[in-house]
């Protein structure tokens, strides 16, 4: 079975600084997708960024980028120029190709200090 591990339950960062959230996963599949979701106190799950396993290039969305290390099964999220609105729970998630099911990590609480 696929598993997703987020080993850091909490992190904090100063506003305008950069922070990296770690995620590792375990799978024997070759076709899969990885996601980072953000859940602010409003509870709304928001997709931050996604990565297709077959793509070597790391995904980037504005201030958010990933470091996808396929051999190491690592998928970290880098947030640059952190903003107060980035404070939230962040969940790493995995989806096998051809399946719609998401497997989530335990999440990590990010605090942004002014």
């Amino acid at each position, binding site marked *: 079975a696929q598993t997703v591990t987020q080993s850091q339950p909490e992190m904090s960062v100063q506003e305008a600084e950069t922070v990296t959230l770690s995620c590792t996963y375990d799978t024997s599949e070759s076709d899969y*997708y990885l*996601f980072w*979701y953000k859940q602010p106190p*409003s*509870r*709304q*799950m928001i*997709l931050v960024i*996604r990565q297709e396993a077959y793509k070597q290039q790391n995904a980037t969305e504005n201030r958010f980028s990933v470091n996808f290390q396929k051999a190491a099964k690592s998928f970290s999220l880098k947030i640059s120029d952190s903003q107060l609105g980035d404070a939230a729970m962040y*969940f790493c998630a995995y*989806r096998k190709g051809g399946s*719609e*099911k*998401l497997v*989530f*990590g*335990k*999440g990590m609480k990010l605090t942004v200090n002014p």
Partner: protein
Amino acid sequence: SAVISQKPSRDICQRGTSLTIQCQVDSQVTMMFWYRQQPGQSLTLIATANQGSEATYESGFVIDKFPISRPNLTFSTLTVSNMSPEDSSIYLCSVTPRLAGGGGNEQFFGPGTRLTVL
């Protein structure tokens, strides 16, 4: 993308009663998913609801406890039956919209229903 609404947004219920949560999507979707998020925890998939067929439940979840309806391509309900305080959670529905040309398959989430069982 997809806009998803859930009703109720929150409720406080008595032990032994049942609550039905509604999930409405602004577009037709093949699959709808129901998740449970216990306090301070991650999301756990309860079941997958396909229109016109029985829902598929994940290990640890049964139809008698969490009956699901999927009458059409834009609507689903999840009932939490015979509730106990351990059922206090946030319940979220999510969908994967159809995309022309395939690919994508982003999963979008509703705002969640916060359930407290006394």
